[in-house]
């Protein structure tokens, strides 16, 4: 297992070297959600996972809330700060008006943040669209492009680890995030 982790770390390192990190990926590179997680970071320590098995026990619930705190302060990938990227995911609406949706969270799976706990902060991007978009609903699959900032923010629904201002909506897609 440790060997596997080391191998995975080495692969991630090689991938970074190939991409030219730490300056971040070249302009407009398509990011996968796994790229937002610092290599080697595990969303949960093994002992926490063991304790999570029972949902209804008070201890299980306590561990779960601890885990969510850990997720809100999840480490971020500093090398991505300022990178020009495109990424696809599910939209969680935050703010907008008559002109349409203006602010949203981009999340990696259907259902996240609404009536369900938020994923780790390194799996949530706070997005302000360059121009409001009409007809965009909760959990529509979208692809956006813009400059990524490493910036932890607290909104009504989640703590996000990355932010993209003046994001451009490239498409509302039927093919999904990776």
């Amino acid at each position, binding site marked *: 297992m440790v060997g596997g982790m080391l191998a995975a770390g080495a692969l991630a390192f090689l991938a970074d070297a190939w991409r030219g990190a730490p300056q971040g990926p070249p302009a407009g590179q398509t990011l996968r959600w796994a790229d937002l997680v610092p290599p080697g970071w*595990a*969303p949960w320590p093994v002992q926490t*996972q063991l304790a*999570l098995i029972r949902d209804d026990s008070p201890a299980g619930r306590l561990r779960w809330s601890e885990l969510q705190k850990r997720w809100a302060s999840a480490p971020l990938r500093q090398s991505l700060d300022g990178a020009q990227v495109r990424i696809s995911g599910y939209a969680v*609406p935050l703010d907008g008006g008559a002109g349409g949706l203006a602010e949203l969270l981009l999340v990696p799976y*259907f*259902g996240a943040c609404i*009536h369900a706990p938020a994923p780790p902060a390194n799996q949530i991007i706070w997005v302000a669209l360059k121009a409001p978009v009409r007809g965009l609903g*909760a959990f529509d699959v979208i692809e956006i492009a813009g400059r990524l900032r490493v910036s932890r923010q607290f909104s009504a629904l989640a703590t996000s680890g990355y932010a993209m201002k003046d994001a451009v909506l490239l498409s509302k897609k039927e093919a*999904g995030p990776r």
Partner: protein
Amino acid sequence: MKSTRGWCRRALLLGLLAAGALRTHAADAPTIERWLDLTPPGWNPYAKFNPLLFGRIQDGSPEAVAAMEKIREALDNAPTVDELQGRKARLAGYVVPLQSTQDGVTEFLLVPYFGACIHTPPPPANQMVMVRLKAPAKALRSMDAVRVSGALILDRAHTGQGASGYRIDDATFERFRY
């Protein structure tokens, strides 16, 4: 009489050939590896509601709660993709154990994100796969990360942990780390 039998035999033969062709077709098609491919394109029960409604769900707004109840029902009856019957799949997700013997876990739900069903409401039925293992897995625990391989079967099941829309029989799996 004889000609009827001949016709029947020919029809049967043709049927078998067609079934064989379909089977080959399903087996030759690209392996399903993304969760979104299990969702009919464009399906989104949230779409008919005001997108900004869901930000207020935490406040217990009656309108939001009523919408969420309707959505929950739609999620549990979420449509599957008919063409996926028999398609090879290799899906990465997390284990929610359902059945085990003294030899280990024999049946589990594969869910797309950590914590689903155990500490949070279940994902839509088209994002839950019931997995019946080829061989019982001794050290498999709740929320272990696995990559499951096998052929998809369209089958709706209501389990104590939520409704699933697909099943994989004789499944094999490998563990992985993100």
